[in-house]
């Protein structure tokens, strides 16, 4: 009897997830930052012989496995509650006091390639050229310099993450050298680090919440004020500046973006939320938009900043190239893949008159999504025609 019960237990554990695959809504706990379900492969002899069918079937099966999110969250919870760390596959790292960081920024912080100086010099030449060509075409280029959370808040990063060398490392100085060079070349720069420092000085608030990778709402607000200042000579309206005062702190903000890293931990219980974030005072009625039609290029950080612009009614429309790979028109239109030099990509870069490119610190010393290189090629090809 004991043996039969034991066998039954094993079989239930093995087979119940299969049964759950056929029951809709059996697994309702969403997993954040996890790849979408893989398509179910169709069997062909050729595919089986080449072993592609087996690979695809395995992938599909593991992605669609019943109770997958429960299993994944359970494993993550063992790491989180047992060891106060994210699982080994997670991009999130838990620092002192529960402050969350992302791997990319730790890697950037620890990086010291000897080629950085040369890469940066080449990149500066490229950006300066783009800025000049944009002006000649009646457009305006603004660079949004976004420092990484780790470089702004290194205090909570444990020593075992960081390589020796401290501020002597070349990478650490990249941001300042890049921003200074751009200013010297007359390129419009919104210096996120300077704005954050000023904001912190006045309010005592951190630029990033403990649980987020993206800027906290008040700092995001300050960056957009910086954008208004930077493009005011080129048609942006000063009325779109606004106060970035904090009204209160809460664990439910309007879009929960301050909790993005916490969500990526994907642990149990799902509703547990140990963090709070500053919430801005309600905005005054928005003035009419300026005539500028911006094209934003950047990471999810830019997406959050666009939301600030939308809330202020700054522009009549917004187009966003996410990593220069997908196109997301705001507000609310569906995201579509975008291919550089395609007719759609060409039309957008030609027709938009304010080009706002995010320069995340962890992507330095280059622009990392090849946008400037492609823009130069595009304009050169157009001239030839």
């Amino acid at each position, binding site marked *: 009897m*004991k*043996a*039969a019960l*034991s*066998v039954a*237990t*094993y*079989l239930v*554990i*093995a*087979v119940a*997830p*299969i049964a759950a695959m056929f029951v809709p809504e059996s697994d309702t706990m969403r997993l954040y930052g996890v790849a979408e379900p893989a398509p179910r492969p169709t069997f062909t002899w050729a595919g*089986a*012989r080449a*072993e592609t069918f*087996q690979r695809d*079937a*395995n992938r599909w*099966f*593991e992605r669609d*496995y019943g109770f*997958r999110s429960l*299993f*994944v969250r*359970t*494993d*993550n919870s*063992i*790491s989180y509650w*047992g*060891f*106060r*760390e994210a*699982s*080994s*596959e997670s991009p999130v*790292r838990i620092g002192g006091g529960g402050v969350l960081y992302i791997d990319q920024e730790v890697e950037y912080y*620890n990086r*010291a390639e000897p080629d950085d100086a040369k890469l940066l010099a080449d990149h500066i030449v490229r950006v300066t050229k783009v800025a000049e060509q944009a002006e000649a075409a009646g457009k305006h280029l603004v660079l949004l310099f976004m420092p990484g959370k780790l470089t702004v808040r290194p205090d909570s990063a*444990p020593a*075992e*993450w*960081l*390589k*020796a*060398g401290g501020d002597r*490392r070349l990478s650490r100085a990249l941001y300042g050298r890049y921003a200074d060079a751009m200013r010297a070349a007359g390129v419009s720069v919104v210096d996120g680090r300077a704005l954050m420092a000023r904001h912190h000085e006045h309010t005592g608030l951190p630029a990033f919440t403990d649980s987020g990778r993206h800027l906290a709402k008040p700092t995001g607000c300050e960056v957009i004020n910086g954008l208004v200042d930077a493009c005011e000579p080129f048609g942006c309206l000063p009325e779109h500046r606004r106060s970035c005062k904090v009204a209160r702190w809460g664990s439910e903000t309007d879009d929960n973006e301050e909790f993005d890293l916490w969500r990526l931990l994907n642990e149990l219980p799902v509703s547990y939320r140990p963090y709070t974030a500053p919430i801005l005072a309600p905005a005054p009625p928005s003035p009419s938009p300026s005539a500028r039609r911006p094209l934003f290029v950047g990471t999810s950080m830019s997406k959050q900043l666009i939301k600030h612009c939308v809330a202020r009614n700054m522009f009549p429309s917004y187009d966003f190239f996410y990593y220069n790979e997908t196109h997301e028109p705001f507000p609310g239109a569906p995201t579509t893949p975008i291919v550089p030099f395609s007719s759609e990509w060409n039309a957008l870069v030609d027709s938009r008159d304010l080009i706002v490119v995010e320069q995340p610190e962890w992507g330095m010393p280059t622009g990392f999504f090849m946008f400037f290189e492609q823009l130069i090629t595009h304009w050169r090809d157009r001239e030839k025609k």
Partner: protein
Amino acid sequence: MPFSSILFISVFLPLFLLAYFSGGARLRNGVALIFSVVFYAWGAPRFLPFILALGVIDYHLGKSIAASTTRKKLYLTLGVTVHLSVLAYFKYSNFFVGETNALFAHFAVPPMPWKEVVLPIGISFLTFEEISYLTDIYRGDARPAKSALHYLLFLMLFPHSIAGPIFRWKDLETQLASRSIAREDVAAGFHRFSLGLGKKVLLADSAALAADRVFGVDPHTLPVAYAWLGVLAYTLQIYFDFSGYSDMAIGLGRMIGFRFKENFNHPYISQSVTEFWRRWHISLSTWLRDYLYVALGGNRAGPTRAQLNVLLVFAASGFWHGANWTYLVWGIYHGVCVVAERTRVYAALQRRLPPVTKMVVTFSVVMVGWVFFRAPTLGHAVTFLEAMIGMQAQAADAPLVLGEVLQRRTAALMLLATAFAFAPFFRGSAPEPATGAPTLPRREAVLAWAWGPLLFLVSIAHMLNSKYKPLIYFKF
């Protein structure tokens, strides 16, 4: 389809057990063979006809060896030559052509044109099983298979077909003909499988994170402590990886009524390298002893020849593992250690040292050997060893930080793995390799009953939340 995959655990295994137990005792071998063929075909469909054809040839050769009185040796030689040629072509031709072309390049001679040969999965293990089958019949130690079904099932039985343990026909012959299965066997099989799955997924794969990180950096810049940490991690990884797989194989066999021999017996508590090889990958070391060492003359031709034979066997063992100089050096390194242990000086030293010291020394010697096994090239291995003794210049910028190499969970699991590896020594119960029915020691059995299903569940959760890390021995 590795055992540590969701597809195997949730689809293949339940379907197989359902078919196996619903078909009645007479159909069980047929069901097992069909599922074993599907299992192999899933991983290497293009080689399936080839492997089956080799099996059929063996079956007939075995009969011919048994039936003939004058041509026994000829048939055996033919069979062994065929199998060794197949192994040489699939496993070593890329290596030898690559080395020859490297030599040609040195003398500015154009390289030989060559299309890379793909290694059929499990070929190294199958070759040894086939050779032992023919040799045992030749020696009169075993009877030829009465049916092709039995022989093909012996070769293809999915619990062992792709990564061992290496079976011998004479050990399974009677079980293939008739076996009884109690519910307790199925339950014990699941417990053993769960234990193996946990060892592979939780312990070995965690240690692999640290090992891969350390072996992934330039060893010229590696600090001493990280080099040792990396080797320790790999030492734990390879043991729990392969012994976990063997546990799963033994457990699967037990579920369907087979009693497979143990393949590991707490090797890291060994007090000499010779003892280590009695406890590590037992099915391989006993195979090499019975079919290579004995064939070379063993110790029948005097001590010097015996020492040479030991060296040759270990060199062959190294090269069997992989077509790379690193494996060959690893094998020779172990051979030299075993030969050294046969000297009077060592015997005198052995008598004076306390057991714990002997164990620590042996463990360190084995760890050093793993550097050759893990490093991609001989140069990398040598530089790594230099880093272990601080002979490499330390870079101003450390290439690694502790947080990258060792997360807290990884560290805890590595500690647990170390405890598992050494506990039998401190318990004072280090049984000799089991030769009979592989029943679990009482304490482990109690643990298995209590924790088996929980371990199974936690292992599945971890598999779904981590990148798949193939068994190290799959590539052999």
